[in-house]
């Protein structure tokens, strides 16, 4: 459009002052209809859960804080913590290897991630659990005695986790502007200092959200160790319902605890993210 036609279009301005005009927002009938429909469905679902006797909420309440369930919960919590800590430590090393100048380290790191992302965790746990078939003895000790179910769970989950952690950490490091490292080099900062003071704190902004995802995934993922008879939260619940046949109430017990812990972790994530957003001027 030329400036000529623009001028003509703008010419018939309202004769009265524009501030007497009232602005009427668009009516959003669709929004109202959708909200009512969703609330109705939600109410129906909640109602059916509360009114269905088969949930046996009294049994849920009875077992929610029973000793064996709390012991299972405790095992789930520390197993998650240990696996995350070891997995990220190994993952950080793998990421550093992948980004190093040494082609052998790069290839090995790539190969590790490829292999351990390819094997389903369930398959891996069963393999480690039966490793005695391959190596009956390790350093003169019977493998079965050396690698109990809990040790197998830690090893299997950690190796699995490290492969994913390596990619999360690598993505975080790559997200830091190259100029940051150059500036740190130009200022004479040591390699160690560059890493801990400059690169990592900035990388953490990209690492925390997927890491929190992984943490929650791991928390629930540990329930898979029940297949090798590690008495985690799920396995403890199963032990009870195998005895009492109250399957649904005990699965509800496990569900409630997983939900509670996940919620707590979500709150923690908020504060960690806020910490690493310093200076970013944007936290969402």
């Amino acid at each position, binding site marked *: 459009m030329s400036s000529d036609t623009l001028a003509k279009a703008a010419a018939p301005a309202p004769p009265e002052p524009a501030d007497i005009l009232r602005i009427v927002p668009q009516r959003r009938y669709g929004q109202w209809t959708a909200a009512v429909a969703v609330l109705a469905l939600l109410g129906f679902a909640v109602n059916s859960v509360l009114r269905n006797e088969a949930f046996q909420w009294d049994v849920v309440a009875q077992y929610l804080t029973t000793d064996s369930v709390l012991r299972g919960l405790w095992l789930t919590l520390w197993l998650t913590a240990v696996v995350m800590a070891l997995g990220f430590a190994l993952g950080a090393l793998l990421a550093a290897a992948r980004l190093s100048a040494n082609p052998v380290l790069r290839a090995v790191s790539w190969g590790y991630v490829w292999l351990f992302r390819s094997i389903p965790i369930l398959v891996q746990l069963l393999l480690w659990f039966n490793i005695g078939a391959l190596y009956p003895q390790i350093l003169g000790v019977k493998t079965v005695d050396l690698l109990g179910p809990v040790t197998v769970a830690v090893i299997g989950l950690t190796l699995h986790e490290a492969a994913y952690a390596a990619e999360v950490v690598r993505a975080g490091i790559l997200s830091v502007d190259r*100029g940051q490292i150059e*500036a*740190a080099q*130009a200022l004479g900062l040591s390699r160690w200092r560059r890493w801990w*003071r400059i690169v990592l704190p900035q990388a953490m902004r990209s690492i925390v959200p997927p890491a929190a995802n992984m943490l929650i995934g791991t928390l629930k993922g540990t329930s898979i160790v029940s297949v090798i008879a590690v008495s985690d939260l799920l396995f403890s619940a199963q032990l009870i319902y195998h005895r009492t046949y109250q399957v649904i109430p005990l699965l509800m017990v496990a569900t409630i605890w997983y939900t509670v812990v996940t919620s707590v972790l979500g709150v923690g994530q908020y504060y960690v993210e806020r910490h690493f957003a*310093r*200076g970013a*001027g944007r936290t969402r």
Partner: protein
Amino acid sequence: MSVMVDIRSVHKSFGPLEVLKGIDLAVGAGEVTVILGPSGSGKSTLLRTINHLEKVDRGAITVDGALVGYRRAGDKLHELREREVLKQRTRIGFVFQNFNLFPHLTVLDNIIEAPVSALRRPRAEAVDGARRLLARVGLADKADAYPRQLSGGQQQRVAIARALALEPKLLLFDEPTSALDPELVGEVLDVIKDLARQGTTMIVVTHEIGFAREVADTVVFMDEGRIVEQGTPGEVLDAPREARTRAFLSKVL
């Protein structure tokens, strides 16, 4: 006058592309040298070789009499360990086009980072020094701000203060005003001019011809990896001998 920077037949290639084709340049102590040239002429690469951010393929650079990045043994130059290179860099300040301030650290922490961690200065002493430097670049009230809360010109002034905090013998500026809005260029150039008046040895890569004319002791014009001509601002800017210099100046003036 003593020579601060001595660059002898420096060559540098990136893969098949030769960006420096034999550079010889001497910069006297207390002098301001301005390097001009079109993009891709190799001027930024040359600047980066002076503090070993880029390794040279051939040739040698000395700063204040010390070989940069290498140790000479007979006819061989052995590459220094990283720790020794880092130590050399603490005597050479570098100011980047994009400032490269650390966004997660406050202005004050940006400035004291190198004195505290690389020079092992006591923190209190470093903070005092940083506050003096901030006052000098006119940002005394911004010590606790984060870089992103500052304008581009203010960020670049902080970056200059950060480079000065190491009390370098030599300051290198890589297009310090190219990333700035036009109205912010002046405040940064004023700080650099002030440093020049106080006798700081500087090498400045820039497109600001007016700045070169006002501040430079020597103007160097580079094109396609070579120094085409060099001399006083009067010689190079007002009476260039080479056709390429004239063609470049006619486009930027």
